[in-house]
């Protein structure tokens, strides 16, 4: 289910993007699932077509959905592959940490520092 609250300070396109992204990441929306068309979703949620289009565009840029021409938008397998890559990298990192004899708290702190440094580059 998608809910758009017009009284929320969060812009409607961001509400929509965040909910769809969350459902894709939680696998409520499985890979290959066909999403509603932009026009239909806009009519259902009482939003402008451009608002829904922007949310879909951002999801597409994040690799979570893909648009196959007139067939519509589908949940992409790229997000799933990205998650698998992250899992593999984490396993490699854990192996390095164990080899160097660094304790878990320190290892987590290193990751957090790396992520904090990374965020400004991404946004």
């Amino acid at each position: 289910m998608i809910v758009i609250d017009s009284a929320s300070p969060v812009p409607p396109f961001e509400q929509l993007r965040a909910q769809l992204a969350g459902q894709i990441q939680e696998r409520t929306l499985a890979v290959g699932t066909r999403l509603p068309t932009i026009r239909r979703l806009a009519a259902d949620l009482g939003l402008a077509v451009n608002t829904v289009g922007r949310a879909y565009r951002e999801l597409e840029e994040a690799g979570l959905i893909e648009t196959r021409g007139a067939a519509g938008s589908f949940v992409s397998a790229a997000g799933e592959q990205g998650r698998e890559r992250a899992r593999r990298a984490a396993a490699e990192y854990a192996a390095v940490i164990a080899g160097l004899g660094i304790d878990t708290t320190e290892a987590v702190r290193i990751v957090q520092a790396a992520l904090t440094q990374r965020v400004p580059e991404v946004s």
Partner: protein
Amino acid sequence: MLRKVRPTELETARLWLAARGLADVAPTPMLAARLTVRRRARLAAAVLPAAFLCANALVYVSALPIRPADDGFGTQRRWSLVVLTALVAGLVVGLSLLDRWVRRVDQQAGAELPRRATHSVRPGWRTVLGGPRAVLLAITYAGAAGLAIAALTMREGAARYAAVVLLIGLCGVAVGTAVRLRHVLTHPVVAADEGSLRADFLMRVEDAREVAVPTVVWSLPVVSVFDTGLDPWNTGWLVFIVLSVVALALITAGDGRRALAAQHGPGAR
């Protein structure tokens, strides 16, 4: 803006929800208004085809030959077919206007909601209408058209005229049904939360199933081809009608059992 909802309409909405296992959903004025307009539109949508059937019968009878020897399509019959085509167009326009009325009330209800909810994946026609119903609908129309076309090519005189009258009526009803089904399957969701989204889905299912009942297809032969008595053709029609009525009754009973199981099942709320 939605008109003021009467307490009886709210009570009807509460009973409607309770009968569908949604007793936990509050009967809002929005839901009451949507159910009321559907009830009225459904009544009008039943009266319109009934009026169409009466007019169809009058048109058919008005152009019947006075002597059995009179065959072919004279001027009177040609005019009667023109009138019938106009009646068919009137039926389709009338049904479309009823749908527009329902849609307008839905739009007004949706515009007043501070929150809007919808499905991430919209239920398709198989979920809303049901595969067996869709197949039955297609078979009923195709079967009726097939019988009418066979009568048109193989029979003579008044029987051919009856088949033409039936075919024109059938085409009109098929177009009307297609327009209404498209409307039911594509019109926007009107919901604010999970409860009203479930109610909206059930309303859509009921609307679609109501539209998909081929009552007019069963009635059309009665006002035209059945005037020749119980010959083999009309026996064929009777068997066809009885079989499709039995099939629909079985499908409806099956749906009822499944709905009951869903309400009382472990996952039911």
